[in-house]
């Protein structure tokens, strides 16, 4: 147990005891180091702990999946990362992975198999919905979010790239809030501007930044909360809302945080 009351087993410790987790939690660079995304990581862990899911993380043995390097064009670096990670995952005989980052999700799920890394990979929204469906996670109705207007921003790598549109929405419905759709949603959802390694450089010259354009959609929907399922969308929209000085009216939150809050786990 940590100082925060979190129980986060390391894969290396489990392996030393000859134990295996049900699922490996792939935290990702943002989830590990970005202060905003760390909160999501903790919220997700709290839910896992509350439900009693036996999981583990790789900790210092985890490294970047290589997604941004590959999409920038640096295939060598991507292949290095993939080979390293596949070696680690296979050494621990990992079969099932859950992650809160759609970019890690997409790379692990779709791009590692040709390189020899075959795992069942699940995004945390699908995983949480599974917990609800199985009756392991029982949502307390009528609580924290009753009467709140929540909108959902589809992340490109969850939506268009992998056709996951329903799980996040089902979770929001379980919150008992009023779900409003953005003007551009689902397969027509507008990017937040971070993908394709854009997160790591200035945008090219234009009339607006992409997150400013997307923030316009958000403001138009007048929600109390914008739910996201991606740490990079979270940063981009958070910045966009703050720039318009609307951060007191509109909160940008990951779905895992909302679930944890509804369960009084925060």
């Amino acid at each position, binding site marked *: 147990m*940590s*100082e*925060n009351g*979190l129980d*986060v087993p390391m894969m290396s410790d489990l392996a030393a005891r000859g134990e295996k987790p049900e699922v490996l939690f792939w*935290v990702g660079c943002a*989830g*590990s*180091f*970005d202060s905003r995304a*760390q909160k999501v990581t*903790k919220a997700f862990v709290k839910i896992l702990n509350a439900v009693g899911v036996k999981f583990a*993380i790789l900790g*210092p043995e*985890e*490294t*970047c999946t*290589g997604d*941004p390097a590959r*999409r*920038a*064009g*640096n*295939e*060598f*670096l991507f*292949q*290095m*990362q993939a*080979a*390293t990670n596949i*070696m680690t995952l296979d050494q621990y005989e990992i079969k099932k992975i859950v992650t809160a980052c759609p970019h890690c999700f997409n790379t692990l799920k*779709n791009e590692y198999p*040709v*390189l020899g890394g075959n795992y069942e990979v699940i995004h945390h929204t699908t995983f949480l919905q599974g917990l609800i469906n199985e009756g392991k996670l029982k949502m307390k109705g009528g609580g924290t979010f009753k009467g709140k207007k929540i909108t959902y921003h589809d992340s*490109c*790598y969850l939506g*268009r*790239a992998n056709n996951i549109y329903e799980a996040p929405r089902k979770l929001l419905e379980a919150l008992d809030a009023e779900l409003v759709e953005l003007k551009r949603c689902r*397969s*027509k959802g*507008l*990017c937040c501007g*971070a*993908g*394709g*390694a854009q*997160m*790591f*450089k*200035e*945008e*090219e*010259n*234009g009339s*607006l*930044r*992409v997150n400013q*354009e*997307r923030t316009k959609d958000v403001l138009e929907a007048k929600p109390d909360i914008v739910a996201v399922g991606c740490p990079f969308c979270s940063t981009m929209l958070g910045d966009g809302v703050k720039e318009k000085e609307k951060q007191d009216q509109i909160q940008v939150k990951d779905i895992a945080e909302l679930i944890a809050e509804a369960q009084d786990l925060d």
Partner: protein
Amino acid sequence: MTAIIQSILFLIVLGLTGFFFLKKAREIYKNIKRGKAEDISDRPGERWKNVFLLAFGQKKMFRNMTPALLHLCVYVAFLVTQVELIEIVIDGIFQTHRFFYPILGGLYTFVINFIEILSVLALIATFAFLARRNLLKIPRFQMDEMTGWPKLDGNLILLFEIVLVTFIFMMNSADMAMHHGEYGFWLSGILGSAIEGLPHGVLVAMERIGWWGHILLVFGFLNYIPYSKHLHIMLAFPNAYYANLESKGEMSNMPAIMKEVQSMMDPNAAMDDSAAVDEEMPSFGAKDVDELSWKSLLDAYTCTECGRCSAACPASGTGKLLSPRKIMMDVRDRMEDLTKLEAKHGPDHKDGKMLIGDYISPEEIKACTTCNACVEECPVSISPLNIILELRRYQILEAADSPEEWNLMFTNVENNGAVWQFNPADRANWINEA
């Protein structure tokens, strides 16, 4: 006598049409073959399903109701009119008159009536298309790349269509007038009864002008299509067959780099592969059309220049130089330019130009967020993103032209396994941080 002359004339025109069409078709085929080999023959069942849903069924068009319905009129009219075209060719060669009429009887009347009604719908749709392009100024038709030839091309096709339908009605109504409504066509019957009083000679001339005008226009059109965005009426079908069946998020693997990295990390493999070291290192990514997959080149010839991709693109929508439609147009222009140059200066001619730099600027491809909106929107199964990513690979792996900030990110990933500069040992520190 005039019958024989008409028959000979028809055969000559038919022959010339076929000759020039096949010549251009071969050129396009060769251009597509410039591309890198890629085996796309798996899962034929799923592929045929795409041909029926996406091409015949126009599935993606219906993401956008108004243009989908307008287009459906033109599209169905075109498909059904092929029946009439077969008859025109038979009549032209053998100088018969309405060859199918005695054979089909009432069914014939039904088919032609069907064609006439569809033609009127198509005509209305065509005027609506013209209005959308020129009066309503729908934004996706007004972007920077839609000036000059592409703009003219878009309008010419629609004008062709109007003249074509006019000739069909001229032919059918004169024929109805001459034969006192024998064929039983409704719409041309109405027009026919209005001109019944004209002298017989005038009616014969009108019928002949309509008949010849129609077929000459069809032949002319057939030879115009390969130079136009209208080529989609043929290539939309094979392009649906070869559409990507994997998750849109998956980037194509680079086996050469994979092998090299795997042998670097596995000393035993390196020993086995020692022979491979002598092999010439392939060039990575694409700087020109011959390094793109042939499917990307087929994509370029299939593009309808509709701009649905660019209308959905976050970069285009925020004023960046990138426009996925322009990427497709540039690739096609590059192939056409190479063909012209090689015809002039011989097959080994090099013009010293490249797709990246001379047609598509690095700034354009850097602005892509890989969001897949362009791929999702394209009604004819095109991926502008694939081309962008292959050009990016060239920029990084061969030209070493990378933004400074990306280099920093690469260094972080390489040195400390994270996109930002953090100590890998601290990766789980969040557990205990407040």
